């Protein structure tokens, strides 16, 4: 029992370390969210509650501009759904990467799945990630998101301007840092990322889809297309091998 606990503890700690870069990346984003919410007219409690209960960066930002524009709350909820529907795809994928757990544990992990926590957990070098490790990643990310939302509302825009500008790159640097090691010597990963990046740019510049949908559709199309391509490429030599053997 004790050994089991300490194993879980070390898995959790491993997750904490992996999540640290998300914690740093969320710092400026959450701080700015807190500040903007204040200028939108939300109280400290209302603002922090949104970060506590919703925990979805992009959707929270968009809700602020919709509140300012006086949009019907129902439409704000609908918009939140559309922006976050991509997480359906991510959690379906995450399921393949995670060790089986009880349903309540999985349901708790699900609350913490954002673009960033998903990316860190799903690109882990380990074959299967434990729930304890996932909780570690999520704990740092969630903690940073909630705490810095509140701090942003309280202290406002007091970070030096040059540093705030520089820190806005943090989440993208994190995504790049997660992608590059997997790309090395793996043409499939390079293709997957390039095709979806190109599609996402096409959707952006043609204004065909809003950001939430663009990410969802680009990801899905690229994942399916490349998989079919590889299934075909791989399937060709298999009959040849079988022939030789028989």
């Amino acid at each position, binding site marked *: 029992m004790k050994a089991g606990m300490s194993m879980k503890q070390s898995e959790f700690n491993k997750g904490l370390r992996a999540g640290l870069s998300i914690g740093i990346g969320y710092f400026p984003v959450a701080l700015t969210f807190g500040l903007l919410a204040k200028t939108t007219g939300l109280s400290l409690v209302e603002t922090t509650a949104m970060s506590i209960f919703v925990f979805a960066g992009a959707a929270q930002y968009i809700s602020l501009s919709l509140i300012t524009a006086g949009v019907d709350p129902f439409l704000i909820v609908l918009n939140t759904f559309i922006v976050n529907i991509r997480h359906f795809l991510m959690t379906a994928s995450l399921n*393949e990467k995670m060790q089986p757990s009880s349903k309540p544990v999985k*349901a708790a992990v699900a609350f913490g799945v954002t673009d960033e926590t998903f990316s860190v957990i799903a*690109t882990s070098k380990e074959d299967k990630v434990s729930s304890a490790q996932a909780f570690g990643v999520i704990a740092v990310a969630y903690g940073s998101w909630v705490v810095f939302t509140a701090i942003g509302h309280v202290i406002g825009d007091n970070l030096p301007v040059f540093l705030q*500008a520089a820190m806005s790159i943090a989440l993208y640097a994190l995504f790049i840092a997660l992608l590059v090691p997997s790309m090395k010597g793996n043409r499939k990963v390079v293709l997957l990322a390039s095709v979806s990046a190109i599609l996402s740019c096409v959707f952006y510049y043609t204004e065909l889809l809003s950001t939430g949908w663009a990410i969802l559709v680009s990801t899905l199309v690229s994942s399916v297309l490349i998989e079919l391509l590889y299934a075909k490429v791989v399937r060709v030599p298999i009959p040849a091998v079988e022939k030789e053997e028989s």
Partner: protein
Amino acid sequence: MGTAYWWMLLGMALVTYIPRMIPLTVLDGKKLPPLITGILSNIPFAVLGALIFPAVFYVQEGNILFGIIGAGTAFLIAILGFGLMPVVLGTIGVLAVYSLFN
């Protein structure tokens, strides 16, 4: 904002949580066909491509160069084999210096 805000928040929380929760609980322990498994395991890498581009170019409004320098720095540090933290902090550092002189 009052009561309407809290109802909206409840709605936002539910529509965010439910799509995150259903696949993880419903699919848990289920064996899926290999083609589906293959597609699902492709998603992390495809998602990263779509999350990075083109958004990284627009981190600073009206200054695409800022995003390009940031993305370039991050790619460079990552290709050299450094981990998450050096990439994130190094990129912030380079852009902080850049912002200081611009």
